[in-house]
């Protein structure tokens, strides 16, 4: 790929005054976009403190909230890419289940053979990535609309997980594996570290690399991207593989958290994930995505559940409230986002 420009003028140095401009604008833009979310989050925390006091506002409780969010949150990062690229992945929940099953079976095998526990992790990630690969190929090369292709995978992967596990729950006894996932690092559980790493890596990938830029481009205008020389189909396959990979990571995290692999892990996860990503401000039609928003989105949902539990409210009430909050959040989000872009 040629990198020269035909243009003969000497490269002018970057004028120094643009630098702060960039930072300012970025902050302004991102703050503008996420302001609604931050406000919603803050409100929720206030409600939590008012209703549940110290029980809510303790370090341990925050760790609980974030640890709960971390598994779903990892999948949200992958989903942010898929939705930004103009797709949707309904299969993530099933793929989480499938990869946890395969990984736990591997662990059972490992018990006899003498190999590293990392193999369990690798197997789970491979299973997830492979499922994403199949999704991607069916969508990009088969031309099947993403909603249907991943709906088929949702149904199929769950069935496969049940067949493989023979519908039984596999307990992982590998001590090194369990030890790793049980550990704390600097007082913060490993699961949360994994979430942080995946989120930061996702942010860099989306905002600072060619891959991310192309993901936005493909979601914004696939035909224009193709004409600009991007291999759109191949890129879509990569994006779904990425989503599958995060589902695989979540499968391992489920394994680490529950010690078991079962086909029921991740049931209906996709709805929470999609809700968090879209509430976070990623456009469902593609072309705009925000990892920060997705993370805020999942934290909001996870805090919501915590506040409800702290207040002894039944799931029925929770569900009604959740429905209202999803709509309110999307509305708020739209107000702030449009104000943000208008002020640009």
């Amino acid at each position, binding site marked *: 790929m040629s990198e020269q420009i035909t243009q003969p003028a000497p490269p002018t140095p970057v004028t120094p005054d643009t630098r702060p401009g960039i930072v300012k604008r970025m902050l302004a833009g991102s703050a503008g976009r996420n302001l609604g979310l931050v406000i919603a989050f803050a409100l929720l925390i206030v409600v939590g403190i008012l209703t549940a006091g110290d029980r809510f506002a303790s370090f341990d409780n925050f760790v609980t909230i974030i640890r709960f969010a971390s598994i779903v949150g990892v999948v949200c990062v992958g989903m942010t890419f898929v939705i930004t690229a103009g797709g949707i992945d309904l299969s993530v929940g099933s793929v989480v289940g499938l990869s946890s099953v395969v990984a736990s079976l591997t662990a059972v095998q490992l018990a006899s053979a003498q190999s590293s526990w990392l193999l369990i992790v690798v197997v789970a990630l491979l299973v997830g990535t492979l499922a994403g690969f199949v999704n991607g190929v069916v969508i990009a090369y088969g031309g099947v609309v993403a909603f249907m292709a991943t709906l088929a995978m949702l149904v199929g992967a769950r069935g496969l997980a049940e067949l493989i596990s023979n519908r039984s*729950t596999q307990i992982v006894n590998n001590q090194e594996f369990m030890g790793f996932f049980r550990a704390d690092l600097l007082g913060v559980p490993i699961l949360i570290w994994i979430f942080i790493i995946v989120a930061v890596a996702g942010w860099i990938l989306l905002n600072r690399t060619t891959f991310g830029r192309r993901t936005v481009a493909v979601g914004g205008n696939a035909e224009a991207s193709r004409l600009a020389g991007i291999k759109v189909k191949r890129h879509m396959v990569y994006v779904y593989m990425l989503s599958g990979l995060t589902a695989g990571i979540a499968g391992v995290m489920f394994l680490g958290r529950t010690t078991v692999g079962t086909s029921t892990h991740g049931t209906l996860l996709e709805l929470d994930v999609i809700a968090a990503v879209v509430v976070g401000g990623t456009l469902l039609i593609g072309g705009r995505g925000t990892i920060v928003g997705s993370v805020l989105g999942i934290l909001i949902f996870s805090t919501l559940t915590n506040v409800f539990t702290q207040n002894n409210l039944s799931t029925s009430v929770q569900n009604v409230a959740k429905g209202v909050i999803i709509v309110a959040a999307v509305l708020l989000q739209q107000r702030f986002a449009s104000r943000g872009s208008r002020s640009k």
Partner: protein
Amino acid sequence: VVGLITGCTAGTATNTQPTNASVEGNEAQGDTIVIGYSGPAADHGWLGAINNAAIAEADKYDDIDLRVAEGTNDANLQISQVEGFINDGVDAIVLLPTDGAALTQVAIRAMEAGIPVINVDREFSSTFAARATILGDNYGMGVSAGTYICEELSDNPDAVVAEIAGIDSLPLTQERSAGFEQALGDCGLSVTNRVSADFTVAGGEATTSQLLAAAPQIDALWNHDDDQGIGVLAAIDAAGRDEFIMVGGAGSANAMRLIQAGDSVMKATVVYPSTQAADGIRLARLLVQNKAMSDLVEVEIPNRIVLNAPVVTSENVDKYLPTAFES
């Protein structure tokens, strides 16, 4: 209602001798205690009854502050609920896990934090995870149903036996089916047609209508769950079939009324007590208040209680109907 089997090893949670084992002493108000309760999503009559009975039981005692985090089929969420209880330092946790093995580690953590855990219905994978365990007998349910059908069909070695299971991916469904197969095998029968519904009325109706189409002649049918049984019966009704006997599961009041009336295919049901969590609440209270079970000589709460799975027929239905749950 329940038969008791005491466990053989003593738990580690109590450090002083229980003080009182009389009925009156146990009823007497003690220090107020906080009990955390978490169960699966009450998307099903039996589970709804479990939760309602637990809450009702706690309401009876002024010295219980029940914190309910009921309602999830997501192991990840339930773990975080238990973590919440640990953070709050509740006095005891009654836990009906969505998946026993998956909740084991967090239960161990609670126990290590000095909070006794009462495990209800779905068993943990480690004995260190609970101070006491109250179980329904899923395998026993299958055996009871199978044995009853064997008795009824004893003269017919070629009998067609159909089974309508609940959610297939739950371990309890697997256990029920295994017990059923075992008992049928003992009298030379086997399951000819098996379908699985999803514990819902609509699911029961849909799968049954398919099953009836697939099996034009049936001699006996075991339906795992009386809730989905409403749908099963609706489908049988709609198909106008009555050549077989049907056995239910769980033991809802509705099913028992049908047995009592005696004019439907429903001839029996196998009880799966819906009061397990309520019993769990009581045990938790006794444990924390350092009391024992009044009808036992033993001065400590037993480790393991397995509830009986009796068969309810028209002969004994009057005895069970009053305590049965309304779906």
